């Protein structure tokens, strides 16, 4: 398999002019995952092969007989995008050497349900085996496709249709799973987080990830207007706010060394982010004030932990 070496892009104009996730799809207005699909497939000049787990991005883009994908694309089931991608990558490696197929970069997309929860085993297996592909988890913090149920990525306190804010229980009572920590513990060459408000960061991470000689992983924050209850014009604003409050730190772990990409010297309080979405509205009741304090405390601790990991040098 030919080694790929994609240098960082300086400007958006350097992207291919074609569109690879074309218009006409049925994703919601203001959909974060749709932006991720479009940016990721455009990030490198070579047309990637896309393997898509079941979820919004899959269902919303391929309503037979239509498709929005101008790249080779396959969906198999919910939990196995990493396994299917493994098969594609290794088969292409053999067939391209024999002149029976054309080699291409392979990107697997999974939502948070398909990655944090049901697809974690297949992902772990693929990372351990070391196939050269990029897995992108578009994280909209719930099973949005089935009507916004709680996932392992749903943040503490958020109301979903299976963790509602009730009279006794104020939304989800567990913290978000540390997915990148789990992924990085496989000692893969490259794992990173990103947020679509910072498109250049995301595109260049895709380019860096696809240049690795092994598996790579990007966890992208993907606001969901339908699931989180905010105005469709605010998607990018939210994707920026979550970084500016340090709730979602943007960092990368390259060959075992962690680097925080955005230091956020003057973080905004978490309320600034929480108040923008109706899924957190109940936290602002007087009796739930302590929960917001807990979220702030957890955010601070998480940030401190990342700083210590960054200072420690090579950690994996």
């Amino acid at each position: 398999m030919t080694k790929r070496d994609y240098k960082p892009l300086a400007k958006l104009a350097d992207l291919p002019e074609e569109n690879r996730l074309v218009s006409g799809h049925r994703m919601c207005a203001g959909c974060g995952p749709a932006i991720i699909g479009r940016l990721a497939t455009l990030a490198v000049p070579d047309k990637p092969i896309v393997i898509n787990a079941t979820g919004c991005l899959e269902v919303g883009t391929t309503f037979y007989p239509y498709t929005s994908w101008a790249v080779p694309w396959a969906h198999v089931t919910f939990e196995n995008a990493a396994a299917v991608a493994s098969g594609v990558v290794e088969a292409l490696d053999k067939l391209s050497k024999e002149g029976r197929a054309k080699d291409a970069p392979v990107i697997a997309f999974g939502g948070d349900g398909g990655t944090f929860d049901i697809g974690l085993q297949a992902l772990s297996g693929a990372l351990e085996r070391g196939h050269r592909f990029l897995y992108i988890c578009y994280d909209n913090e719930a099973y949005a496709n089935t009507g916004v149920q709680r996932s392992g990525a749903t943040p503490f306190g958020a109301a979903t249709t299976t963790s509602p804010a009730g009279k006794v229980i104020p939304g989800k009572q567990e913290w978000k799973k540390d997915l990148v920590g789990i992924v990085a513990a496989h000692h893969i060459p490259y794992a990173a987080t990103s947020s679509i408000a910072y498109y250049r960061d995301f595109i260049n991470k895709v380019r860096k990830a696809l240049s690795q000689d092994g598996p790579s992983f990007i966890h992208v924050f993907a606001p969901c207007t339908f699931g989180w209850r905010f105005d469709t014009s605010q998607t990018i604003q939210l994707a920026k706010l979550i970084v500016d409050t340090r709730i979602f730190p943007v960092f990368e772990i390259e060959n075992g060394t962690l680097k925080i990409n955005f230091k956020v010297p003057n973080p905004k309080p978490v309320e600034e982010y929480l108040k923008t979405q109706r899924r957190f509205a109940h936290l602002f009741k007087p009796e739930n004030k302590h929960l917001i304090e807990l979220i702030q405390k957890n955010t601070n601790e998480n940030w401190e932990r990342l700083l210590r990991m960054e200072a420690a040098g090579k950690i994996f």
Partner: protein
Amino acid sequence: MATVQEARQKMMELTGDQAIAYGAKQAGIDFIAAYPITPQTIIVEKLSEYLADGVIDAKYINVESEHSAMSVVIGASLAGARGFTATSSQGLMLMFEELAVASGMRQPVVMAVAMRALSAPINIHCDHSDFLSTRDQGWVMMMAENAQEAYDQTIMAFKIGEDPSVQLPVMYSIDAFIITHNMENVYTLPDETVSGYLGVRKPIHRLDPDNPMTFGPLALYDSYFEFRRQQHDAMMNAYRVTKDVFVDYERMSGRKYSPLKNYMTDDADVLVFAAASTVGTARQAVRKLREEGVKAGVSGLTMLRPFPVPEVIETFSKVKAVAVLERMASLGSPAGPHYMDLASAVYPQLDVRMYDFVYGLGGRDIDSQMIARCAKTALSDAEHKRPNEVRFLGVRE
């Protein structure tokens, strides 16, 4: 196609598992997904030895579950590779979801199944509950009686599945331990004969950046039904193609295959219907019955899907009674899976009376005397026009 004379076929001492691995090696597989489960494991172990010794040039992926085994093979097949895997029992159940996807996406992957009882209680020995439970998932399905058939079906499976008019996955099976682990003499074809017969896979559609296509879309009530109907048509094509492959393979190997293996059926009053290794035991039972003056015969199943309706009608039209042997209890059902297939095949054309016998669950032995008794019981029940009831053979009450 010239027959490869027996002298040019190498006789090898192989277990059923080894025979399958040897056939897969010769079939030019590009891609293997391996996950251990007793008693299939020898197949993937043997293939890994071939790989380690440089005997095969294939991608060999040790996956973390059977679900991923089928998933990576589907992925490899979408990329254009000839993919193979093997499993058994719980492993087949774990990959159940992907079985329907492999056939729905029309990927001609091939899988060997060592038929083993299902949990609970956990049991590693032979019955057909695993294999037969998957019968409606759109796979072409064959059942091998012995190591020779297992070897031959390995090669034929790729030819059938990859046929442009079929494009379906193919599963074939052997009995746990009875065949997987017992050594038999197996005639094997020369490597070049098999590679000449199968060639390399030429996929009709694949994941290709120069010709981007979408595989596995969302299809609702205005198109899903048509997809399923096309699978049905492909399955009907598979009936014709499999029979053609049997003919070609006989010309090549000298070994005759047919959807239904009939033995002493021409003048029979009563048939024993069986599948897998029990077919051989049934032949022995029938020989004894003939000595006693009972005109009995055996109808052994090779092709489970598509089900060989014309052959069943033709064979059953001449008999009074059939004893149907089932190595699976279809719990709560009026009869076992073979009986339901057979009854559907003969109704309403034939007036044959069939009686269902569940045997050998969890690896319990069956012998020729037991089978002979089934045949006599079926004949007597038919003469007295008794209704069918599911009976359990050799179980302690």
